[in-house]
């Protein structure tokens, strides 16, 4: 199956073992919503340092599965805040949407991998 939000083929090539890939997907599914909420909460509180760091962490986590759109949007927020732009409000819903789609795809892929793994046993 091909996913538009990340590169499943690249991830499998890098890590090979479906069980390890499922562990990575599980961590991403738990962490990305937490990092996103941290970024949104920090922006709402005017804490741009924390928001910038949270966006940076989203960028790194998303890059682990070659999730380019989420990665690029997180990078755009991080760079804007670093450059002193305090209004990143147009980018945040885009990042939230990209992360939501990514999490849906990661969930679907994890279910597929677990199904294949059980079928092989």
């Amino acid at each position, binding site marked *: 199956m091909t996913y538009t939000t990340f590169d499943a083929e690249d991830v499998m090539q890098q890590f090979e073992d479906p069980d390890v890939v499922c562990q990575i997907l599980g961590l991403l599914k*738990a962490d990305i919503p937490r990092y996103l909420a941290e970024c949104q909460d920090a922006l709402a509180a005017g804490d741009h340092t924390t928001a910038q760091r949270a966006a940076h962490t989203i960028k*790194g986590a998303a*890059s682990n599965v070659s999730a380019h759109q989420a990665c690029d949007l997180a990078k755009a927020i991080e760079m804007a805040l670093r450059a002193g732009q305090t209004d990143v409000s147009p980018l945040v819903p885009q990042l939230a949407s990209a992360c939501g789609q990514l999490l849906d795809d990661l969930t679907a892929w994890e279910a597929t991998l677990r199904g294949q793994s059980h079928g092989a046993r």
Partner: protein
Amino acid sequence: MHVLFCDDDSSTRLIVKRIVAQRFGCRVTECVDGAEALQVIAKDPVDLLLLDIHMPVMSGIEVVEALRGTPETHSLPIVILSNVQDEPAIWHLVTLGVAGYVLKPPRPSALIPKVERYLSPAQGCRI
């Protein structure tokens, strides 16, 4: 051989720990921020530090500065893993004597060559 990897993202820690432990068979300890890294090193000396730059509490740059200012860790090999491409920051790390710089996302093809010189069989690490 004991490797410490410090990064605030858990998926990155899992990936790097797997790459290093599987390839070199070393003990790999994880921590989530710079302050914790200094605490781990003080209690349980490491042979190699793999270090992110942007972290809460204490950044990777501050960790390198602290280690270079301490006689026991002055020459500890440190490899930076980061997606920071900010030249002044990288040059500052070079002047502090970091052993290498690996761009994220961490991939075996980029990471292994940077760390294998510090984790060789001659140094007691099984491969």
